[in-house]
């Protein structure tokens, strides 16, 4: 709206502009008839000037009307060019983007520093009656003040509390937080001024419900102030750690997705402070590329690594921390059915073969296998394990099954080997539905040579790196008895030559599982006797037992919650010293209290939402219980910035009212931009000019009777 008014009610005063019109027409009706001595001069003058006088008369009327109109408009406090309400009692919510990209260096300071300076000037420009609230958005989105503050020094001083973060700009979180703040605003509509670099982001399904929530909270109008311009640069977007448990001394390939700034850019890898490897990119400008670092897995423990590149304007993504957990052994809880007389030496379902494959008795093994009968399964035993392996288990009780599924939901892993035809009912009615797989089962038994297995995806971590000859050996193994399953939502990794799946992987909650529809008894297949049994199961179990959320070494993005599962060896002491649990953040190493939480029988240490990139260490006294490496979200490395106009259209698509772009205006002119410039003096000046014009045009009307003839003569 180009013209708005501080006191719109005074606009009723414009009705006074009708007075000259009324007077004009009333005076027309009051025509006096006067005898006059001689009309010759009047006749001459009138005929000569009749037209111009008629025009002048209407012009005089117009000037009077306009003059009164302008004075009435001036009294109403006109503001020109404002995009918001002109009222002095306004509520202004400033949303300051504190995300990682706001740390990009500009000519003078960072984008965040520029945004804070602009915000400070805008608050200073607000009238004293205005109320101010500030929401910072970057990793964690929260209001800066406990409640709305009057505009002034207090609010300006509060801006010093704003800290940069390495988190992402989350528009949905901004809208939700704005809704909470707007609901407590002293007046509506609330003008929401977004100070951000408007980094390009993909559309999020969470935006629409958040926008709806904001619209329900009260009337709002958005203004945007874009800080900074697109700056060239690159960064490390993500670190790809092995998708399985690794063993000390193992040669692995550690990958990373990077955004090179130029061709043949060098990225270096450090582990525990020592340079380990370098990688050189090929090509640039084509977006993210993958680089690989050959690494020999260090000893057991939690290892802190960093991938670096040379610094650019946005230094935040020029290095990325990660933590590599090397367990001394994967703890496998092998749950089996009670042996029956008919079972051979391999035990029910051949569980002893599996235990032997994972942890041969004649040497060190990366696995620590603990067999337990199904009837003896407890959640405590479950929580102390990295992986649960079920071999033809007896039907689990309701509580045990619920515990198992909850454990999976929390990030646990499980492997099921089911090949006993007597368990078909339990399999179809309970276990498969519980895992989210189709319940249809059909026990297959063939005679003769049986069917052979085929690897569907040789690049899968279970099979990746295997010698082709080994794969050939594996594919020569004969299968004679199995359950025919339907994969449903799962992924088939192995099939028989008859196309029946014999290895299905799936996910439930945060956890993952694999189902093998056979057991290891010799009458069912030759796998237990195959030389491939040991590598197959070790790889399968390593992959399933990869440290996920239920690990002492967790890699997350800034903005996520730091949660670790205490190291098994220390968890006991951690729980004993719950009141001494501390978490140290990245950067200054400041310590804060960590909380101990139990989920699905698993102890979890929580350190809150991470705001800065780096290592977060959980401590109990001098014991390190876990390490979290937080990296800047890849989206913060996006170089493209949105045009404020496009940003406005995007917001309008969410039914949000965007009323202006302040980017090209000085922050000190904020009020002029928001409420418009005070044009009352101009209007009064124009009114004065009109009145002078009226006096000049109609000066005869105000003349005193003319001088006597003696003066004329």
């Amino acid at each position, binding site marked *: 709206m180009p013209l708005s008014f501080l006191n719109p009610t005074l606009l009723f005063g414009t009705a006074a502009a009708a007075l000259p019109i009324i007077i004009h027409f009333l005076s027309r009706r009051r025509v006096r008839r006067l005898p006059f001595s001689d009309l010759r001069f009047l006749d001459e003058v009138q005929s000569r*000037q009749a037209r111009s006088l008629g025009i002048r008369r209407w012009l005089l009327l117009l000037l009077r009307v306009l003059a009164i109109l302008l004075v009435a408009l001036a009294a109403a406090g006109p503001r020109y060019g404002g995009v918001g309400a002109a009222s002095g009692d306004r509520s202004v919510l400033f949303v300051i983007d504190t995300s990682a990209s706001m740390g990009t260096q500009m000519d003078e300071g960072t984008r965040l520093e520029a945004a804070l300076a602009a915000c400070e000037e805008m608050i200073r420009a607000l009238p004293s009656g205005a109320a101010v609230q500030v929401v910072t958005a970057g990793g964690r989105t929260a209001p800066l003040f406990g409640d709305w503050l009057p505009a002034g020094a207090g609010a300006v001083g509060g801006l010093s509390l704003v800290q940069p973060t390495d988190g992402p700009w989350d528009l949905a979180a901004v809208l939700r937080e704005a809704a909470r703040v707007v609901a407590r605003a002293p007046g509506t509509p609330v003008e929401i001024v977004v100070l951000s670099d408007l980094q390009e982001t993909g559309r999020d399904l969470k935006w629409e419900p958040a926008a709806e929530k904001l619209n329900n909270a009260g009337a709002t109008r958005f203004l945007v102030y874009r800080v900074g311009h697109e700056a060239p640069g690159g960064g490390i977007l993500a670190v790809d750690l092995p998708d399985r448990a690794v063993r000390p001394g193992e040669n692995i390939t550690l990958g990373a997705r990077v955004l090179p700034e130029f061709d043949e850019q060098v990225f270096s890898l450090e582990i525990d402070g020592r340079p380990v490897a370098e990688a050189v990119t090929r090509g640039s400008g084509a977006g993210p590329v993958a680089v690989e670092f050959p690494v020999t897995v260090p000893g057991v423990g939690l290892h802190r690594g960093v991938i670096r590149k040379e610094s650019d304007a946005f230094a935040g993504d020029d290095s990325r921390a990660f933590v590599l957990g090397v367990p001394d052994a994967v703890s496998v809880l092998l749950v089996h059915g009670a042996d029956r007389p008919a079972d051979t030496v391999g035990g029910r379902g051949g569980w002893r073969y599996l235990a032997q494959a994972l942890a041969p008795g004649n040497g060190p093994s990366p696995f620590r296998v603990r067999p337990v009968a199904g009837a003896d399964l407890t959640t405590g035993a479950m929580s102390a394990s990295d992986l649960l392996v079920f071999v033809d288990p007896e039907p689990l009780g309701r509580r045990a099954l619920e515990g198992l599924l909850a454990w999976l939901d929390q990030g646990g892993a499980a492997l099921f080997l089911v090949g006993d035809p007597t368990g078909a009912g339990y399999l179809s009615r309970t276990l498969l539905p519980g895992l989210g797989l189709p319940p249809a089962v059909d026990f297959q038994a063939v005679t003769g040579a049986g069917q052979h297995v085929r690897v569907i995806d040789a690049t899968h971590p279970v099979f990746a790196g295997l010698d082709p000859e080994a794969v050939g050996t594996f594919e020569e193994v004969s299968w004679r008895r199995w359950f025919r399953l339907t994969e449903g939502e799962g992924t088939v990794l192995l099939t028989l030559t008859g196309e029946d799946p014999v290895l299905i992987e799936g996910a439930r909650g945060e956890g993952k599982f694999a189902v093998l529809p056979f057991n290891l008894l010799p009458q069912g297949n030759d796998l237990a006797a195959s030389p491939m049994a040991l590598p197959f199961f070790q790889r399968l179990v390593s992959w399933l037992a990869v440290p996920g959320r239920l690990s002492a070494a967790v890699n997350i993005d800034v903005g996520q919650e730091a949660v670790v599962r205490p190291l098994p060896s220390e968890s006991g002491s951690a729980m004993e010293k719950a009141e001494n649990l501390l978490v140290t953040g990245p950067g200054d190493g400041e310590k804060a209290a960590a909380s101990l939480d139990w989920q699905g029988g698993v102890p979890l240490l929580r350190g809150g939402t991470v705001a800065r990139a780096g290592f977060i260490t959980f401590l109990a006294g001098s014991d390190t219980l876990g390490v979290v490496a937080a990296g800047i979200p890849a989206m913060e490395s996006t170089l493209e910035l949105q045009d404020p106009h496009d940003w406005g259209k995007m917001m309008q698509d969410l039914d949000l009212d965007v009323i202006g772009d302040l980017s090209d205006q000085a922050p000190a002119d904020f009020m002029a931009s928001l409420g418009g410039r005070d044009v009352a003096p101009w209007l009064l000046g124009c009114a004065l000019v009109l009145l002078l014009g009226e006096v000049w045009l109609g000066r005869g*009307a105000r003349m005193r*009777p003319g001088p006597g*003839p*003696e003066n004329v003569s």
Partner: protein
Amino acid sequence: MSSPLLTPELVGHLGRLDLVARLVVEGFLTGLHKSPYHGFSAEFSEYRQYIAGEPVSHLDWRVYAKTDRHYLKVFTEETNLRATLLLDCSASMDFTGDESRPTKKAYAGYLAAALSYLLLRQNDAVGLVTFDEAPLAMVPARSMRKQLFQVLKVLDDLPAGSSTRLGKVLHRVAERVQRRGLILLLSDMMDDPERIISGLKHFRHKGHEVIVFQILDPREMDLGFHGEVEFEAMEEPGRRIRMEPSHLRESYRQRFGQWQEYLRRECRRQLVDLVEITTDTPFEKGLGAYLQKRRRMY
């Protein structure tokens, strides 16, 4: 100077013209420092002793030479001036822009009465012609005392006139006034100025001295009316002009001034005295103009 009590507004309330004439003239004469008519075309009457302080212009130096005494010569006044007052009684002379002021005709009547009184007091002969588009009444010029009453009688009963044909009337009157003398025209001159000048030329051609008292109302000159007004011509009933005077005031005054300037210029050219008087002007102005003219003549 006259008594401030005898303003045109107050004179109107006196009613009797003879009283008006006497009061105006006596008041006017009392205000003068010396007799305006002393020494005019007079015959010697006697001597009287000079009193210190008197002007020495009439000292008889021969007597002084013989007697070594100062004597003044005293003259008996004698005149041969014949003055004819021409009074415009047309409808336009009935105009007044303010009810508190006399109409132009009334003002002209008062002035004519005062002039008659003054003329007769100087033993001049006074005549009167009233007219509108034609002569209405005519009193031949006489110097008798009772002539004043003849003149005042006509002035007391001035008729409501119609339109003006001043030029034509002047020609007619010029033909009828045979002896050379002084013509005193009292009119607003609201007629074709060229015809008026033509009429005045006629008088000059006949050897008359002419004084024109142009009597106007102040409102006529400055069009000092407010609001929307419908003016009706006094000499042409039914002819009206509707206007907002304030819008035309400047142009009107300009045009009016041109007209007056034309009259001034032509009167000057014809050696006619033009005395512009408004109805709020004291009568002394008219009387003074007459006396100046009289002095120049004799």
